[in-house]
């Protein structure tokens, strides 16, 4: 487990303010499971609330991190999490082998594949019972994936299959390119961050937090 100081944003009456957070690489399984326990009830309650109101329910409402941790027994998978003010604010599971870039100029070269990434339900508009509490969770976790990609000699390349409701975030906030729906994976759109785009993404985030 490695802990790195980072920053999220916290909602205030006037808007958002920076708040210290910790990025955890290789989150212990018991910590992931504790986060799931803390998230599960709010995720389900939020989904029921939205459904009762006739609103769109987040596509990941049924996720259960306890069913994903078995993958961490394999070398192929690593995890990351963001902790802030004593609570886990986001989790990510990545795969390091078996996926490669689909677009030129690096087509066929390895990348870090984001298998799952989720922000705590109280940070997700709609799922939260009130306004979302913390921001920038997804951004910090995608940054962590880029850093892992550099550590693995993948030049910052990152890829994933996006749930439709998350596509805008990957396109507009992260600068990922879409290869369109993948008929081999539930027709979810394939997105990837090229080496060049990952530099711009990290640079843009540095500027945003200054």
């Amino acid at each position, binding site marked *: 487990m490695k802990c790195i100081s980072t920053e999220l944003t916290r909602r205030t009456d006037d808007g958002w303010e920076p708040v210290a957070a910790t990025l955890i690489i290789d989150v212990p399984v018991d910590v992931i499971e504790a986060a799931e326990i803390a998230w599960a009830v709010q995720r389900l309650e939020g989904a029921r609330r939205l459904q009762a109101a006739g609103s769109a329910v987040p596509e990941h409402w049924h996720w259960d991190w306890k069913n994903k941790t078995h993958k961490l027994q394999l*070398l*192929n998978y690593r995890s990351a999490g963001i902790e802030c003010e004593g609570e886990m604010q986001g989790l990510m599971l990545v795969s390091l082998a078996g996926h490669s870039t689909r677009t030129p100029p690096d087509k066929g070269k390895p990348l870090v594949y984001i298998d799952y990434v989720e922000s705590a339900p109280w940070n997700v508009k709609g799922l939260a019972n009130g306004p979302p509490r913390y921001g920038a969770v997804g951004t910090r976790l995608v940054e962590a994936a880029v850093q892992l990609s550099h550590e693995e000699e993948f030049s910052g390349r990152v890829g994933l299959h996006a749930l439709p409701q998350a596509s805008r975030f990957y396109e507009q906030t992260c600068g990922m390119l879409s290869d369109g729906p993948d008929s081999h994976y539930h027709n979810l759109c394939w997105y990837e961050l090229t080496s060049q785009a990952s530099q711009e993404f990290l640079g843009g985030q540095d500027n945003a937090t200054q």
Partner: protein
Amino acid sequence: MAGKRTMTLNLTDEEMKALEELADRKDLSKTAVVRQAIRLYQLVDVRMAAGEKLYFEDEVEKKKAELMVL
């Protein structure tokens, strides 16, 4: 990730050539290629031991062949 350990790897000329070609094509060091190979081999081995099968599929030729892994 845990600390790293060093080992000597004895390869034939052909094996070394294949490793170097892969490293060049994937833009990785030879160590990174070996690391990727171990990850994939472990993943495949565990999933096949659990009863899953591994296939190569050629969508153009409409061919599908099961890959046997020792």
